[in-house]
């Protein structure tokens, strides 16, 4: 698994529950390292072990933890850069939804060896969408649930989300757009960061 993924889980635990909790997770998972490196690659098994340990440590089901990680990725101030990269996807939430097809390619443009699962958006009518995630890693759909929820807030849209698993291991998220301009959302200035950078 790419270090960025493991690093995201670690960041989620540290930023939401403190360094002590992360220590407990590493101990429970039997990790040899105390921290993951974002730009290194790790055995897939480690990611599974850590997720299991987080779930056990917090006493919450794995699906919930994954969804919270997705929310964390978009909404935590420490990951502002990531929120901005996602917002590049579109001017409005619907635009953004349509950009998800390109997300794995976009990710690879930034970090060559980062392979995100394929996603496919279908719009059934102007307010009903389904997003199909095909991933070798079960649970990716739950992360996307969190990402979508947080980004809907970010765009100021009001949405209802539903997660289901279909036969061939694919995960399908149903997105019902109740209102595109429900709240003001958060500002996104196209040139704001690029110049500082």
């Amino acid at each position, binding site marked *: 698994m790419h270090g960025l993924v493991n690093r995201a889980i670690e960041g989620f635990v540290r930023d939401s529950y403190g360094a002590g909790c992360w220590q407990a997770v590493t101990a429970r998972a039997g990790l040899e390292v105390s921290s993951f490196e974002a730009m290194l690659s790790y055995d897939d098994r480690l990611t599974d072990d850590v997720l299991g340990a987080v779930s056990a440590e917090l006493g919450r089901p794995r699906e919930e933890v994954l969804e919270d990680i997705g929310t964390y990725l978009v909404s935590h101030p420490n990951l502002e850069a990531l929120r901005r990269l996602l917002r590049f996807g579109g001017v409005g939430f619907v*635009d953004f939804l349509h950009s998800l097809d390109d997300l794995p390619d976009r990710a690879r443009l930034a970090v060559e060896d980062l392979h995100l699962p394929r996603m496919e958006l279908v719009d059934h009518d102007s307010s009903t969408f389904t997003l199909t995630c095909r991933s070798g890693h079960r649970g990716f759909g739950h992360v996307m649930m969190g990402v979508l929820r947080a980004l809907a807030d970010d765009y100021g849209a009001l949405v209802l989300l539903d997660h289901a698993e279909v036969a061939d291991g694919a995960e399908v998220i149903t997105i019902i757009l109740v209102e595109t301009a429900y709240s003001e959302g958060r500002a996104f200035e*196209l040139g704001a960061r*690029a110049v500082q*950078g």
Partner: protein
Amino acid sequence: MSPGAGSVAADCAHDALCPMHMRLDADGKLCHAGPTLAKLFPGRTLAGQGLFDLFEVARPREAGSLAALLRAPGGKLHLQPRVPPGIALKGVIAPWGAGALVNLSFGISVIEAVRAYGLTNTDFAATDMTIELLYLVEAKSAAMEASRKLNQRLEGAMIAAEEQAVTDTLTGLKNRRALDHIVGRLIERARDFALMVVDLDYFKTVNDTLGHAAGDHVLRQVARILVDATREGDTAARVGGDEFVLVFPGRSDRARLAAIARRLIAQLSRPMPFDGQMCRISASIGIAQSAVYERPDAARMLADADAALYDSKREGRGRHAFHAPPGAAPRAAG
């Protein structure tokens, strides 16, 4: 093409395809400007204005008419708006009816321009690569930052590893930390031992005249000689640039230690060939024995061995001396 009804439809199409375009009449006056281009001149009506009034034309040089612009090689233009911030634009011109169409772009200044004019995704055509470019710049900055942090942490880890190391990387001998540990343990276990401080003479001259490569070669040769002089259980350490310490546990025979010192000095004084040159050094030695002290102390013993070393140096180079027990006069021997 007539400048009549058809041109309205054409302008709409152009606005969608090239939001930074302008349509000029035969006199070089703007008939229409795309919506993004209009943002460069806030509060001004562009229709009817002359291109040369709105822009300074950097290329083609000294072009003063529409005809001159149309003669530009490849139709390539460099324009600069005459209103601040005046970010330079790239353009391409093509004849259109009696006049011309010009499409503009920010070129390499796009990041600056997006910020200065507060542009958003909708200001660019869907085929325009600007958004992808901005995305890429930002994504790469974030990735670079992650890599930079990794490098910093690796450097920190390397420094920490070096700090915990017990080996001198140049010679492979023990380092100062290892020496302190070994001596500390001997004292803890109340074992008799002798410390020999070996200081190279003329080493600086070798370094200065023959270079650092020669200096490093000499240090490695010295290390080999010191290791050969030690038995299993003894320790040879490099504690400074040209300063070494030998530890001999269980060796208290003064005559035996003196013989070792003399043999070492003789070996170290032999010229060492390096790269067709001869490196000539010698050594001075100071010796301290734990048996002399009521309660031996590592720092104290090393300081006393050092003092004995300087006594021997005062007598001339290439000698050794024992730290004298309290009351006795220090003595240098040949």
